[in-house]
């Protein structure tokens, strides 16, 4: 039997203070207000004063409302019963299915012992050359998609999700537009993947703070599946909303902000979520793809900046394409040496030349004379954008490498590419013959 307290002494932002003895730090409480019940979490204890963060927001809470401590930290059900189910940001069913209370696990569990991890070594093929060739995605990688609002990031996320060979997909939506939620649901349904998917959806219409639990819920569930040997893909959209909710709570708690109002522990907060990505020694894996929208396309904004330091690279989505500069997969070296011996050469050379093309474009826009080298670069750049960069392209890696050789052969002489002679001898003429 849990005691009920009715002496709320302070309501500030979405944080309330109640007097109660013997409460565990981070414990969950239920608040029953006239508007309905909401979950709340203990975020500070000062003697008998207990500070609670109310997930549904404090609007409408009266100082006489009932607070009931559940005596444990936040939990979520786990196991196969969750497959195909849709929940809200507090883990309650949004579909018409039953409330689950089997196999309850605590969320935000401890960190994996690094020695129980293995070096990631399996490439996830996406059919997108800008990923497969230039920034290969690897199983157990944590990778955000940096983009500005309005870019097709959810489409990209969904496309990778449906094309990737994984056992289970967990979608954590934070501040997701309702349309986007429906889009994810329909696309997974059409693809026949809904029965192996689990949704934790916090929509833009829900109280901001409620999205704070979404990453932990999604990842706790994913972790259970991974431990049982499943390969799990977790999609999180959009982590900037999560960071903003952290900011809101932090300001309410009167903590000293570090950078643009964000709390000093933003890095640690994000890291403890992203680091859940893992390839277990003798069990399954978790791969995390997350969307981070950049306010004002500013990569130095605290959210993308801190994210970039945590994740293993990022896909930078701009103008509807994955931008080669700024995009990076840190784990690509684990896999791209084992695909085909020209993979790395193609990757380095084509990007180097594309960088030169960008410089030439700049010169051109300033009205400078275009040398014959410049003209070659312009031709190359145009072809590269059309045939490689466009997200419409959907070809396997090997085809994309062949395409790379023929693109270069149609624009340059071998020595202009700076490629080692041995490589040229092996592939250059072959691609010339193919044409």
């Amino acid at each position, binding site marked *: 039997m849990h005691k009920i307290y009715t002496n709320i002494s302070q309501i500030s932002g979405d944080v309330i203070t109640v007097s109660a003895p013997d409460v*565990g730090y981070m414990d969950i409480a239920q608040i029953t207000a006239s508007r309905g019940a909401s979950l709340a979490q203990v975020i500070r204890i000062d003697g008998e004063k207990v500070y609670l963060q109310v997930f549904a927001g404090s609007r409408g809470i009266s100082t006489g409302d009932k607070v009931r401590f559940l005596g444990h930290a936040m939990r979520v059900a786990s196991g196969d019963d969750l497959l195909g189910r849709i929940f809200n940001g507090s883990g309650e069913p949004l579909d018409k299915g039953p409330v689950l209370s089997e196999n309850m696990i605590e969320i935000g569990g*401890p960190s994996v012992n690094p020695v129980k991890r293995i070096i990631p070594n399996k490439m996830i093929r996406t059919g997108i050359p800008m990923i497969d060739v230039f920034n290969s995605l690897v199983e157990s990688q944590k990778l955000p998609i940096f983009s500005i609002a309005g870019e097709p990031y959810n489409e990209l996320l969904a496309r990778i999700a449906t094309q990737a060979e994984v056992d289970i997909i967990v979608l954590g939506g934070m501040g997701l537009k309702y349309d986007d939620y429906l889009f994810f649901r329909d696309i997974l349904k059409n693809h026949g993947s809904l029965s192996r998917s689990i949704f934790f959806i916090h929509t833009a219409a829900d109280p901001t703070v409620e999205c704070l639990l979404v990453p932990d819920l999604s990842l706790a569930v994913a972790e259970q599946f991974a431990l049982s040997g499943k390969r799990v893909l977790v999609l999180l959209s959009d982590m900037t909303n999560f960071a903003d909710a952290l900011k809101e709570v932090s300001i309410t708690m009167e903590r000293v902000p570090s950078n643009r109002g964000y709390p000093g522990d933003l890095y640690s907060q994000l890291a403890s979520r992203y680091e859940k990505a893992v390839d277990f020694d003798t069990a399954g894996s978790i791969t995390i793809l997350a969307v981070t929208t950049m306010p004002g396309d500013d990569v130095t904004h605290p959210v993308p900046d801190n994210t970039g330091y945590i994740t293993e690279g990022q896909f930078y989505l701009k103008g509807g394409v994955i931008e080669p500069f700024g995009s990076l997969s840190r784990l690509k070296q684990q896999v791209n040496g084992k695909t085909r011996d020209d993979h790395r050469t193609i990757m380095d050379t084509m990007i180097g030349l594309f960088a030169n093309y960008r410089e030439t474009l700049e010169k051109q826009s300033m009205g400078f004379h275009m040398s014959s080298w410049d003209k070659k670069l312009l031709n190359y750049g145009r072809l590269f954008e059309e045939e490689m960069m466009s997200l419409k392209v959907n070809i396997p890696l090997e085809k994309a490498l062949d395409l790379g050789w023929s693109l270069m052969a149609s624009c340059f002489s071998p020595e202009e590419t700076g490629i080692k002679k041995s490589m040229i001898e092996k592939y250059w003429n072959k691609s010339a013959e193919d044409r």
Partner: protein
Amino acid sequence: MKRTGKITKINGNMVTAEFESFVIQNEVAYVISGSERLKSEVIRVRAKSAQMQVFESTTGLRVGQEVEFSDSLLSVELGPGLLGQIFDGLENPLPNLAKEYGFFLKRGAYLEALAQDSLWEFTPLAKQEDNVRPGEKIGFVQEKIFKHYIMVPFGFPSHLKVKNIVKAGKYDLRQVIAQLVDADGKTYECFLKQSWPVKIPIKAYAEKIKPQEPLITKMRVIDSLFPVARGGTYCIPGPFGAGKTVLQQLTSRHAEVDVVIIAACGERAGEVVETLKTFPEIKDARANRPLIERTIIICNTSSMPVAARESSVYTAVTMAEYYRQMGLNVLLLADSTSRWAQAMREMSGRLEEIPGEEAFPAYLESRIASFYERAGVVRLYDGSVGSITIGGTISPAGGNFEEPVTQATLKVVGAFHGLSRERSDARRYPAIDPLISWSKYPSFINADIVARGHEILRKSNEVAQMMKVIGEEGTSLTDYVDYLKGEFFDSVYLQQNAFDAVDEATSKERQKYVFDFIYRLLKDKFSFATKEEALHFFQSLRQLFRGWNSAEFEGEEFKRIEKEIQSAIREKIISE
């Protein structure tokens, strides 16, 4: 009598406890929660309440729970068996934790850092009646490829006499190997191990001397242009994705030192795993033994508790000092010092201290300075010399070097290897920007030659900037050739292919040889009719050079390509 207290406040990983008798600043305390004992450190005392940072998650702690004070400062155990190990920030051996508790790091689980019952073949050096002082070598055991000296514990009084010492033979870490007496006849016992508080530097040496000798990292841009001295300090700031960690990993593999200590501080677990799994397989060229045998990894990755992150760099540097005391050259790589600074910031915020710039505490600078000051070359009492070189990466917010951690570090280090986004975007690795980096240490390459290298890079950059404004056609042919020379130097010498078995590491001799070759080439005058021709010449020269870089030094292939390059140059050169 055990001193205890009771929890009164909990805020994140900071817990406040009321105590009765007294507490010691920075002593270790244990928070007792059911069957768990959570380690913490006292960081502030106010009247009868002690504020402690808990090295674990505080979930579920309650007001009224007991806190036990331990009397000892946060310390590490030092002794044979450290090499090849991987510890967390509090010196818990991670492989043993995994054996005991499985996939996850269990809260409140602490294990002995060193295997107490492993036997070591001990050879005494000191004799009965010898006068000894702290740090003096009284014997040794063989640890991997090193003579691991057993020293008089650094915390003992300064004038001691050997009362007795065991004979050569096998001993474990629990056995007393020597007894020492002070002037008053008080006896002190020595074991194969000793312990030392991490936040206090070990000073049991005769004198600190100036770092002079270059530390060969086999990275051309570092050794030739921005060298690091043995016993020196350097920092690598750079935006994310610029290759800080890769650079550190390469250094840890190739640097010519005895012991490498890697402090993975608040960074990705995946990167540590890579070191962990590959080091046992890579052979150290000099000793022909696996690299891991001369490496210690201190690993406190970003999802592990923040407070232990703060202590992890101290744990690492204390171990470095311990091996230095044996007369070894130690390299400490800290990745990343920004995460350590952030850990200080988090704690400072919880203590509600008045914040400095970007909410970092006011003592940030002095903490950074005193950390790097633990590097250096020292002459030990027996005349032998040991050193600690510290290289720290910095992850500046937004890649902007004008932030507190970078600025505070630049004041105290001897070399600065600044990584730039532009270079990494253009895949110019290592992305050390030659235009902003500097080093106060001497290079093994003649200073004039190095100066010429810097000059051509500067000139090339100037011309490149100018060309952006006036265009290629407005640039004179001489300027254009200078621009190409700089670009050429950059792409074949400064850039190094970490994925090429040969190019990955360049020996000192090869660097001298190749730099000299390029130096002559940079000085040479060429006859080109057009810019087009010049561009084409340097492009094909670059291609040849890249092949040269991946040919074994002084091998057949190396000589063949060298001839090819020479003949290509001869065609265009204007003889003087």
